[in-house]
Each structure stands twice: as structure tokens, then as C-alpha cells.
């Protein structure tokens, strides 16, 4: 589904990604962990071209997205993204947040889009919040609306960048529950998170990144139970 070959990313002189190679299969849930500043967000953002890779190639279903001919707006519809800081549109209601892109980008009629919007709100457990503005929602609710918003474009892959890091602890569970559901439904997911419970329960594979490289990868059991790399071990000992 996703193949990444020798991906490099520089910010000016700073080399943030130093040759990433990886693949994600259909319906797979890949969890990315690693210390702050190791390039996890940058890697994720390269996958939907929010950051432009400096060199290397990324294929989504066999199509090179780094090629000049690729229409990035179509690509991005296939790659839903959920941000650490939610980034809901504050001037729009929960429902409008979800329907904006389907109406403007996919040209769905408002009633079609509303129908999708309502069913997605129900799916994330916010059936009664359709007409509420973001500043009346809690962090957990905001993030669930954000997930619904990304799903409204019917993406093939969902990218999550530390979706629960900005949440109060009591709200982490409700967001993870929505993500687990998605995983069970067979959504292909790349998730940057330090929620080990989540990684163990639904993760198929864990990538450990450090200093712009994938240092170690394996099943959750391998990585958390028996990490081989010294840096993985020292990282895990700090966060577990």
C-alpha cells in the first residue's frame, strides 16, 4: 500500500530524515515511536506531502507521489491526517467541519455530505454534537471530530500524529477507542504514539525512529518485550 524508499528530508542544512525505507501493507496498523525530535512527524507529513521530501521516493498503491505529475490534492484525499493539536476549524460547527471538504472538494451535495457527517459523528460517539462549535467541545471530543472529518473523505490510509498527546489523561481512552474501532474495521493506519497499550492491542508492527532513521522494527511483542537495539532499550526504559 505504502512503500518508502530512501527518504531524506532537510530543513535548510538540518538533515531530519536520513534515509527511511519502509512499507505498510493494506489493513496494517503501523505504530511509530521514538524520542522527541527524531523526525516522526516529519516522516508522517512527507507521506501526504505536507512536507516535501528532499530526496527518495514514496509510492501509494504503486503510484509515485513524489513524481511531478501527481496531483497532490487527490493524493491527500486518500490520506486522512489527524493532528496532535486537532486543528478543527473554529468558525465551523462539528458537522460543518466534517462536511466542508466533501462539499467543496468532492462536490457532494449538502444533503449527501450532511448524511455522511451525521453518521460519522455517530460513529465517533458524538451524535448530539453536530451543531456545536469547537470551543464548546473537550479535547477528546475535538479529536474525535477531527477523526470524523478526515474519514469523511473516505481515505485509504489514516495518518495519526500523536493524537492523544495534547489530551488530559481521562480523555485519552475515548480517542483510542475510536482508533481501535477503525483498526478493527480494516483501516490502514500509521500512528505516531507512545500509547503502548494501543500499540500492543492493535499494532501489527512497531517502528522505532531515532535521529531520522528507523533504528529497529518488529512486532509490538518484540519491540516492547525484547528490544535488540541499545537505543530502543534506553528509550523504552524512559517511557514505560
Amino acid at each position: 500500500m505504502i512503500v518508502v524508499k530512501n527518504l531524506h528530508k532537510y530543513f535548510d542544512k538540518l538533515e531530519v530524515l536520513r534515509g527511511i525505507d519502509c512499507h505498510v501493507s493494506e489493513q496494517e496498523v503501523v505504530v511509530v515511536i521514538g524520542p522527541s525530535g527524531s523526525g516522526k512527524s516529519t516522516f508522517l507529513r512527507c507521506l501526504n506531502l505536507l512536507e516535501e521530501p528532499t530526496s527518495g521516493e514514496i509510492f501509494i498503491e504503486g503510484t509515485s507521489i513524489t513524481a511531478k505529475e501527481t496531483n497532490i490534492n487527490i493524493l491527500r484525499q486518500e490520506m486522512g491526517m489527524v493532528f496532535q493539536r486537532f486543528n478543527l476549524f473554529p468558525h465551523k460547527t462539528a458537522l460543518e467541519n466534517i462536511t466542508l471538504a466533501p462539499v467543496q472538494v468532492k462536490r457532494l451535495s449538502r444533503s449527501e455530505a450532511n448524511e455522511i457527517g451525521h453518521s460519522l459523528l455517530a460513529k465517533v460517539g458524538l451524535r448530539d454534537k453536530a451543531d456545536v462549535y469547537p470551543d464548546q467541545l473537550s479535547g477528546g471530543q475535538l479529536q474525535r471530530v477531527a477523526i470524523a472529518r478526515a474519514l469523511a473523505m473516505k481515505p485509504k490510509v489514516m495518518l495519526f500524529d500523536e493524537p492523544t498527546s495534547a489530551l488530559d489523561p481521562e480523555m485519552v481512552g475515548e480517542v483510542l477507542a475510536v482508533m481501535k474501532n477503525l483498526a478493527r474495521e480494516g483501516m490502514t493506519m500509521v500512528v505516531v504514539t507512545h500509547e503502548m497499550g494501543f500499540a500492543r492491542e492493535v499494532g501489527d508492527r512497531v517502528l522505532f525512529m531515532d535521529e531520522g532513521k528507523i533504528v529497529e522494527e518488529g512486532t509490538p511483542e518484540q519491540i516492547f518485550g525484547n528490544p535488540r537495539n541499545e537505543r530502543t532499550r534506553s528509550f523504552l526504559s524512559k517511557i514505560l
Partner: protein
Amino acid sequence: MELPLELIWNSLPIILEGALRTLEITLIAISLGFILGLFAGLARLSKKRVVRLLATCYIDFLRGTPLLVQIFMVYFGLPQLLGSFQTFMMDTFHIAQIWESTHINPFVAAIISTSLNSGAYIAEIFRAGVQSIERGQMEAARSLGMTHVQAMRFVILPQAFKRIIPPLGNEFIAMLKDTSLLSVIGFEEMARKGQLIIAQTYKPFHIWLTVAFIYLIMTFAISRLVDYMERRLKAGDDRR
């Protein structure tokens, strides 16, 4: 000193007629300036260097030179330029006269000079407004497959617009006062009306005082109106 109330009373209709023209030209300048400013402000933020450079030239030139000089350039300079252009065309291509007269009437010159001028100031207001919106908003919109233009139109500008109402109000007030400079080209706004009355009555102090007082009423009323709009938008936010 006694106030010649009768004189003031008798001059009032003419002064108020001027006040209406002042208001009219200010409204025109700000409206056209708003459109110009929107485009110039966005151009200033463009990724394309040429576009950015052109916008910067326009904005810096108009903000860095006196409005009075700009008025002169349009009212006296433009006709000369048009005349030379006409002569050139007639000599080179042997075509008939394009314009009977290249003289520009004061109203047209007033519109051109003040709109160009306020466009430059409003461009900076728009630029600051757009830049004040969190980067995550643009990223969220783009990640859903919206184009840059769609993201601006549906996500960034609606939020920026709320924030720029106070500086727009200030620009309106500044322009209202600055239109008095149009008296030098004989555009009959309030200051010009004042001059004309004084030429007949030889009572400069009383007439200028009256004129000043009416400017004050206008600027005060506008600043109240802007405060009110700002409060209402805030209240709207709180309700949410």
C-alpha cells in the same frame, strides 16, 4: 470673543454637503482598497517570488510616500503621461486622437489616489490577519485535499476577517481625515467647502472649528461602530 452663530448656522448646509462627499469618497476608497488590499496582501504571502516582489513594491511605494504627492501624481501627472502616450501612438501608428482631453476630473483622481493608497495599507492589514491564523489551520485544510485557494477562502480568510475589523476601522478613520488633502485638487469634500466659505466670509477660525468638529463627530461615531461590531463578534464567540 463671541461666536458668530448665525454665520456658522448659515454655513452648515454647505459644510454638511461636503461632509457627505467626504464620507462618500472614504467609503469608495475603503471598498476598492479592501479588494485591492485583499489581493495585494495575499500576493505578498505568495510562494512565487515575482508576485511577492510586485506586491511589496506596490505596498512600500504607497505607504512610503505622502498621500498628497500621490494625489498630485494622479491628478497632474497622469494626464501628462496619457498625453505623451497619445502623441506617441499618433506619431507611430498614425491613428486618430484617442482622448479629446487627458484632463482627469477631481472625483476620478480622488478615487484612484485614495483607493490605491488605502489598498496598500489594507494589504498589510490582511497580511497580518492571515499570518495570525495558526499554521495548523492551513495544514488541516490542505490535508483534506483542498487547494490553497479553497483553504484560504473557506478556512483562513473567514477567521482572519474577524481579527482585522479593528485595524480596518482605524484605516477607515485615518482615510476619512486624509481625504481633506483632496481639497488641493478642488475636490469638494468638507475641507474644500470650508475653504470656499472662508473665501467669502473671512472667518477662518470659526469655520475651521466647525469643520473640525464635524470631522470629530464622524470619526467618533465610526470608532463607536467598530467597537460595537468587535464586541458583537466577541459575544458571538463566547456564545459558542
